[in-house]
């Protein structure tokens, strides 16, 4: 039979164990989360669009991330990054403001390396060609 003292010693061990499990699961959830990568890709593309807009003439830049696991959607208002099956609330979206007459478009689903190309007043997100990688 478990005495009161033994019960409290056991509960001490249990409390330490529970704390360890909770702490580890929190750390694991943060480590597994792709928040950092999604934020970096979205910020990078937003800044690339801002820079491309400021370049007179044509230009091409490669997004320095492998975007295989993500879907990217570029519109004239924003860039959205998300994973398959994610709700819109979970998407990482960065808005930008293009000058009048400019437009941006393009999407990427499991494309790997993607490029942003500026031609005239149009900015397109597309898969990088072999010689552009």
């Amino acid at each position, binding site marked *: 039979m478990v005495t009161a003292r033994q019960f409290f010693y056991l509960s001490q061990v249990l*409390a330490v164990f529970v*704390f360890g499990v909770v702490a580890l699961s929190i750390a694991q959830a943060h480590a597994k989360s792709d928040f950092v990568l999604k934020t970096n890709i979205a910020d990078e593309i937003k*800044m690339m669009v801002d820079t491309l807009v400021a370049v007179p003439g044509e230009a091409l830049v490669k997004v320095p991330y492998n975007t295989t696991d993500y879907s990217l959607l570029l519109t004239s208002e924003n860039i959205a990054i998300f994973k398959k099956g994610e709700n819109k609330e979970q998407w990482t979206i960065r*808005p*930008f403001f293009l000058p009048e007459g400019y437009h941006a478009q393009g999407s990427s689903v499991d494309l790997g390396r993607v490029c942003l190309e500026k031609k005239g007043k149009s900015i397109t997100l597309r898969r990088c060609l072999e010689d552009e990688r």
Partner: protein
Amino acid sequence: MSDDDSFLIPQEMFFYIIVVIIFAGMVLFLAFGIGTFKGRVVQTSPQLQAELIALRFTGIPECFAYKDERSIVRSGIIDPQKFSQDVLDRCYYHFRKEGFTSFNFRLQLQGENKELFTNNYKINDRDDFTLVKEILKRTTQGFEKDLLIIFVQERVERTTDGKKEELRA
């Protein structure tokens, strides 16, 4: 009565309540701490973001960049005749929905003594930081050095159309 039976529960209970509170605090601290740390790590400098947006003011003919007789765009050279509110509105305009989550600018072309504002800029609010660009401006004699001073506000609240006009007046 044995020693175990006379074990004083209230005294140890008090200790355990404290321990549970400390544990809960540590777990919460860990959860929020990591979240805050991650947010800070991925944060991009607002100065850099504003600088990149501001490149367009001197870089493209749709903003203030000078386009010569052969239609060649001269990046970094401003055409003072273009330096107007109308051109700025076509160059950088916030959709009202998102106006308060981005950057708003006040542009001052020092030599011309002219000031322009983007549509959600608030005159009565303080500027968060300032960017100074050495530029050339087109004159009747050729080109002249000048300073384009860009005052930047970040995350300005949304304004109504009526208020916007009032701010600019």
